[in-house]
């Protein structure tokens, strides 16, 4: 079982008045999420890899940022890469920071204004990056349509479906298998033994997110989940 640091090993993101309470993080005073420093910190704690989010600027640069907007700047898709603050890395800089990791999970944000263009650009860029060696690249998205674009443009890349849909295990697995994807990324609450077994029977990996409870992490490990994505990767590495 591999533990991936969710957006790197980072401090708690700012919370809004309506946000639910957050789980304690490994590194409350550490770097911001989705930054070069957060990815470097993942290696330092011994995580197998990181999960990060990719978006496209108006001048076609792939950058790593979770939200569609950048505080104080506006919609990321409407600004040029040069206008972004320095802490938002390009995908290239992020992958450089991840060079020594085993796995990098790149989430293509389905809520981008042109998600198809983002998927196409990401697929093309990662296809070329994968030919240069480095960590295994795993592309995920909540949108199967977006994931299909990645599959079509970079058939060699592993793709995994992020989902919160409460589907029966066979339906979930069938959707992914029929569309030629390699992994299932269900919300951790959706993962149970039959789902993992069925996924493995179809050669799909199971990557559960976001696993911040150590007891649940131990259970998911026992069930055979292949990857756990967590805001507490250092703590999860202690789970046996």
């Amino acid at each position, binding site marked *: 079982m591999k533990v991936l640091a969710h957006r790197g090993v980072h401090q708690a993101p700012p919370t809004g008045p*309506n*946000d*639910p309470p957050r789980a304690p993080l490994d590194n409350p005073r550490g770097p911001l999420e989705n930054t070069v420093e957060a990815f470097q910190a993942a290696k330092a704690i011994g995580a197998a890899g990181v999960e990060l989010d990719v978006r496209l600027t108006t001048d076609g640069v792939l950058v790593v940022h979770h939200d*569609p907007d950048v505080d104080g700047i506006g919609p990321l898709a409407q600004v040029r890469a040069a206008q972004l603050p320095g802490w938002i890395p390009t995908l290239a800089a992020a992958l450089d920071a991840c060079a020594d990791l085993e796995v990098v999970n790149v989430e293509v944000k*389905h*809520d*981008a*204004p*042109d*998600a*198809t*263009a983002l998927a196409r650009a990401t697929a093309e860029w990662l296809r070329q990056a994968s030919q240069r060696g480095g960590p295994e690249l795993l592309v995920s998205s*909540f*949108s*199967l*349509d*977006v994931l299909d674009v990645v599959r079509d443009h970079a058939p060699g890349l592993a793709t995994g479906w992020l*989902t*919160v*849909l*409460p589907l029966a295990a066979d339906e979930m697995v069938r959707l992914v298998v029929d569309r030629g994807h390699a992994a299932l990324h269900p919300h951790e609450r959706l993962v149970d033994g039959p789902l993992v077994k069925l996924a493995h029977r179809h050669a799909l990996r199971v990557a559960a997110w976001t696993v911040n409870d150590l007891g649940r992490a131990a259970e998911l490990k026992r069930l055979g989940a292949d990857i756990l994505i967590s805001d507490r990767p250092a703590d999860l590495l202690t789970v046996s």
Partner: protein
Amino acid sequence: MTADHRTALLCDDDAQVRGVEARLAADAGYEVIGEADNALDAIQLARILRPDVIVLDLSMAGMNGVEALPELRQILPACRIVVCTAFDVFREQVEQAGAAAMIDKSCLGDLSGVLAAL
């Protein structure tokens, strides 16, 4: 709203209704990326999924749709919320809270056209 690819979150405490809504949303060109059987889960999923559209039931146990609507609007101001209910008496409240449309559950088939027109 994403030009080429639109996503939907469905919230209704009846799984069968969500199933019909999912089919109608797909007919209108939406990819359904989330379902919730209560308003609190819908709010949580809205934060994670940032859908283009939320189809929201009003009468649910716990927090009802009328209470959830302003919160959803606050979290995702650009998201269009279509209220789908059997209770027309809430129409004024729903419209004031900023719903994009309200349809009668007895005419659920209209959902596809309403979503397509958004």
